[in-house]
């Protein structure tokens, strides 16, 4: 029997050897991505660079949202709040006192914010931390409930943040929003954050902590009976997700340079929900694929909202909002025929990828 253990350990050491190969392959892939982005930054036009930036921001948001909704299985509806917190706090940090004076025309900005001005990197981190601290405080009441109730409570919190942003005239400039935010965000920042988010969350999910989160998703009763503090683990996933969502919000604000409470409605959360459900709840790979498809797809679908001339015979007038109708149809179709999303709970693995070439199809590793 001891021999069996030795055999299994040997097999695991072999897979540990594969781990080194996987690390090298991952580094090569990241290198290729960086090269491609560098070329894109050099030669692509502004419109396509904007899309690439949005893709990276949506990857960050979807992967961190999936950590709490998919991996931990706690259905929550609040990321618009965290994105708003990150966007507002980072923007207020980077805007110069002069810009603030020009923005706050109805009521002057509160003194403790009016004279602050910090570089972009600390502002991003402050954006992330603001969201994370809020998530931590919010976690105590909301994780007293589960399931549908959790969804409703978090939805409420998301709306509260938006309403607060709308009414705290002296801090957020109310419905006027903030204009003239410096456009610091570029491909390096957005993709750097996306890769950092992926690195941290993938490592966490593949560790003992990730197994604990999945255990809470699969059977909270059993997890607690095994000594796992489910409340603390939910709080961990929630806070970490909020940290990255807040940073993504900071990036977003410094990309579009104008923010107002209207930008952070439930619609933002809904878009992210479409992404993670379409990609597969619990699959980080699925979130990445769906984030790319969604962001790119919604740009391609802009065509349907513009007047179209069909072969010179007649003209279809553009219907604003038609994109969302098409997305809804796609989502319904996916829920009918592809119930688990693109990836289900499976993840990309090099083992599977190399198997595609050697003809041995082993299937993606389930996590």
């Amino acid at each position: 029997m001891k021999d069996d253990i030795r055999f299994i350990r040997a097999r695991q050491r072999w897979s540990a050897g594969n781990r080194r190969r996987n690390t090298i392959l991952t580094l090569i892939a990241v290198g290729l991505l960086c090269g491609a982005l560098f070329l894109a930054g050099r030669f692509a036009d502004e419109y396509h660079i904007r899309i690439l930036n949005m893709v990276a921001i949506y990857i960050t948001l979807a992967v961190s949202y999936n950590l709490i909704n998919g991996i931990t299985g706690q259905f929550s509806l609040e990321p618009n709040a965290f994105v708003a917190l990150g966007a507002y706090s980072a923007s207020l940090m980077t805007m110069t006192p002069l810009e603030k004076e020009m923005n706050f025309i109805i009521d002057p900005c509160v003194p403790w914010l009016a004279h602050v001005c910090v570089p972009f990197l600390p502002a991003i981190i402050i954006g992330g931390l603001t969201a994370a601290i809020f998530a931590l405080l919010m976690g105590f009441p909301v994780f007293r409930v589960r399931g549908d109730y959790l969804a409703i409570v978090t939805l409420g919190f998301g709306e509260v943040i938006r309403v607060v942003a709308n009414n705290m005239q002296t801090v957020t400039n109310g419905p006027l929003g903030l204009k003239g935010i410096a456009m610091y965000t570029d491909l390096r920042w957005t993709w750097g954050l996306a890769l950092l988010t992926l690195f941290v969350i993938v490592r966490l999910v593949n560790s003992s902590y990730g197994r604990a989160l999945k255990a809470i998703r699969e059977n909270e009763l059993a997890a607690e009976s095994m000594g796992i503090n489910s409340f603390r683990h939910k709080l961990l996933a929630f806070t970490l997700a909020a940290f990255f969502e807040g940073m993504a919000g900071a990036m977003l604000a410094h990309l579009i340079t104008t923010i107002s409470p209207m930008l952070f409605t439930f619609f933002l959360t809904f878009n992210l929900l479409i992404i993670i459900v379409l990609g597969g709840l619990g699959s980080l790979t699925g979130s990445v694929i769906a984030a790319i498809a969604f962001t790119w797809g919604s740009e391609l679908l802009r065509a349907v909202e513009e007047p179209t001339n069909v072969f010179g015979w007649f003209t279809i007038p553009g219907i604003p909002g038609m994109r969302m109708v098409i997305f809804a149809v796609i989502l319904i179709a996916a829920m009918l025929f592809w119930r688990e999303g693109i990836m289900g709970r499976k993840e990309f693995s090099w083992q599977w990828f190399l198997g595609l070439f050697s003809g041995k199809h082993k299937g993606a590793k389930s996590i």
Partner: protein
Amino acid sequence: MAPLLETRNLTMRFGGLTAVDNFDLRLEQGELVGLIGPNGAGKTTVFNMLTGRLRPSSGSITLQTDGPVELVGLKPNRINRLGIARTFQNIQLLPEMSVLENVMMAWHGRLKSPFWAPILGLPSYRREEEAMIDGSLELLDRVDLLELADAEAGSLAYGQQRRLEIVRALATRPVLLLLDEPAAGMNPNETNDLMRIITEIRKDFSLTILVIEHDMKFVMGLCERLIVLDHGVTIAKGLPEEIRKNEQVITAYLGERRRAAD
């Protein structure tokens, strides 16, 4: 010496129903005690109170580890960390995770590394994970599940799932093990295997065991002492031989009319 676990006047009321009434239990170190009674007698409710799943309406539960600890009001995960592990009447595994991962989960509550240790790839975390894998494989070997380490837990046969649940409880390093109908749904061969395994682990891990079971062969063959519950009331306590002949117990199980007919 004070008993390992002592409950005093443990009572659980659900609205007007008293599910468990003034339950007194003294478990000495190393004992194997059976908790029996007809369906709905309140046996599982007792387990749920001992493990923190239910908060008793009144009464106290004291566990003697380094010193006496009052368990009423503690959360299930805290009670598990103090040394009480359990299995469930309806098996509660993590069905989509592997057999090995199911056992490794039991280590997580004792993990010393903070959450950022695996993210940074610290060697201290890697050592802990290695120890986790080694320990889990050894435990799986003990219950003949080693070959199935990589299988999905939900795909296991019923008897194997039962054994996996026991070994997972063991992996949390308990001093007291609570088994809720471990032999339910098993054939005689599987029951015999289970009895052997329980005897072995009890000796090797110096465990105290409290077991709920309906299989009388199992109870009579294994338990040193029995407690009989009926409608939440403790109707008898004593050696298996005494319980077998106890009038009240026979009435509880077979009913008044049947006895009258005899």
